[in-house]
């Protein structure tokens, strides 16, 4: 009664749709093109790993926003407040765990970072829940009001952070064993960036699994395409909205911890500083597309590092140039979501 093997068997005889590899090829081409321009393979490796680390942190921050944008059609310009919250929570947690962060052993160091990440995600997720209920829900479907009220929410959030932690820059030093770099010949790969790459890849894998293999993920993907039809099939999309918003906020909090450690200091405006970058990433990737967000973030990370080395003045606007180039090629982004 409960087995559906026959359709799958029948379908094996028909061609499947091809996976679009062009954006991934473009990413590889960008990295390979930089090699002769940089000249030194060891410098290229250092810059590439740094770019991948930066890209994966940006992906973690932006992935929640692209789902919020795609599923809820909400222009959340207040996403930065969750990044800042995560980073500041990390300063408190890691200061409170000084014994672990100052330890020369890797395990306590990783433990402190793990606890900081968990706390940041919990706090940012809880604030995201309140933010969605109080600030975003009344302005569903009203883009101009969304921009105004979410930016206002971010300003209020930043001021609350200043009240709690003070307006000054707070150092967020790396734990002992994550300082320095691994040396491979002349190539130096910072230890922390390896950790950032691993965390970023784990988040990406979990997101792909949830979105591709679970019914909740299926509902999110369907909701990104046609919210009205999801409701017509009998699902309460408001609950899905709240859930996605909370997860998006928690991911921004996680990204805030990684970004703060990446810069080794945090300021209340840390979220606002990366806001433009994450909007560029989700536009490049295609609104609502997780894979697009991933590839777009890596492109942004790599280009920022290569341009910073080759032509520092160009680095200031390299990401804007990348966005223009990608949109001229694919106006809907690298992996456009159908029906939007």
């Amino acid at each position, binding site marked *: *009664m409960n087995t559906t093997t026959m359709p799958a068997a029948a379908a094996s005889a028909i061609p499947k749709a091809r996976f679009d590899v062009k954006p991934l090829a473009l990413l590889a081409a960008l990295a390979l093109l930089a090699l002769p321009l940089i000249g030194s393979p060891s410098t290229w490796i250092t810059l590439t790993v740094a770019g991948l680390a930066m890209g994966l942190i940006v992906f973690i921050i932006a992935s929640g926003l692209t789902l919020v944008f795609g599923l809820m059609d909400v222009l959340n310009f207040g996403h930065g407040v969750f990044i800042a919250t995560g980073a500041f929570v990390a300063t408190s947690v890691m200061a409170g765990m000084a014994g672990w962060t100052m330890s020369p052993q890797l395990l306590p160091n990783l433990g402190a970072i793990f606890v900081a990440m968990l706390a940041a995600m919990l706090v940012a997720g809880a604030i995201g829940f309140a933010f969605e209920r109080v600030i975003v829900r009344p302005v569903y479907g009203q883009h101009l009001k969304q921009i105004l009220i979410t930016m206002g929410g971010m300003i209020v959030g930043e001021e609350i952070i200043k009240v709690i932690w003070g307006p000054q820059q707070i150092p967020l030093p790396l734990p002992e064993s994550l300082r320095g770099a691994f040396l491979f010949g002349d190539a130096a790969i910072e230890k922390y960036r390896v950790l950032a790459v691993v965390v970023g890849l784990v988040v990406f894998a979990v997101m792909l699994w949830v979105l591709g293999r679970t*019914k909740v993920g299926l509902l999110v*993907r369907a909701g990104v395409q046609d919210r009205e039809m999801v409701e017509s099939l009998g699902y309460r999309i408001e609950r899905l909205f709240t859930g996605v918003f909370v997860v998006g906020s928690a991911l921004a909090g996680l990204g805030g911890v990684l970004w703060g450690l990446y810069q080794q200091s945090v300021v209340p405006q840390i979220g606002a500083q990366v806001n433009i970058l994450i909007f560029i990433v989700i536009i490049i990737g295609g609104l609502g597309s997780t894979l697009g967000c991933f590839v777009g973030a890596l492109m942004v990370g790599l280009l920022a590092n290569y341009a910073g080395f080759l032509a520092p003045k160009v680095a200031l606007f390299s990401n804007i140039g990348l966005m223009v180039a990608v949109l001229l090629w694919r106006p809907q982004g690298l992996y456009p979501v159908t029906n939007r």
Partner: protein
Amino acid sequence: MTALLQLQGVHTHIGAYHILHGVDLEVPEGEVTMLLGRNGAGKSTTLRTIMGLWRASQGRIDFKGRPLQTLHTPEIAQAGIGYVPETMGIFSDLTVRENLLLAARQARRAEDIDTRRLEWTFGFFPALKKFWLFPAGKLSGGQKQMLAIARAIVEPRALLLIDEPSKGLAPSIVNNLIAALRELKAQSSTILLVEQNFQMAKALGDSVAVMDDGRVVHRGRMAELADDEGLQQRLLGLSLGVHQ
């Protein structure tokens, strides 16, 4: 025959526009009720108002004796109403399997879908079995329409609301669709069908309601309307015979 769905004096506003002006309609259980009318008469708005996608600003909508007008769309769907919109509402990036899995609310995985029901559905639309793992966006127009209807019937529903299923389809595909809907009708399904194709209306309809300017201006048996060219001219501005 008892009315499964009943609309009494339903008004709908969309922004500043007053679209439905007091719709009265009955859908008898076990019958196919055709909702006919010119473009802009309010047929699609009536279906969307029943589904709660646009709120009725006035009037009463009863389904199995239970008022629907205060419920939200998911609750209306859970009450047992399947909806196939004019746009089909296919999730193009999802496969046929994933589209049907979403429609089967009780199933967490495709393996959980009731196989007998699924085979029954494939009986109407065999192409869906063939394209089970294919992205829905790659299907032909006719196959998409079949998927849209299959989605509405993959779990038992007391009432189906189907909006212009023949729109944009080639005549041969429309004939297949008529055959499939006839099969559904033979299973005593209750359907409220909006249609501009009069061949389809005549082939499928038991009862009919004709709308004009946001109101139902005629209710009766489909066969009577099909046999009365004068009535067709008066209500619809054309003759069924011309379209056969």
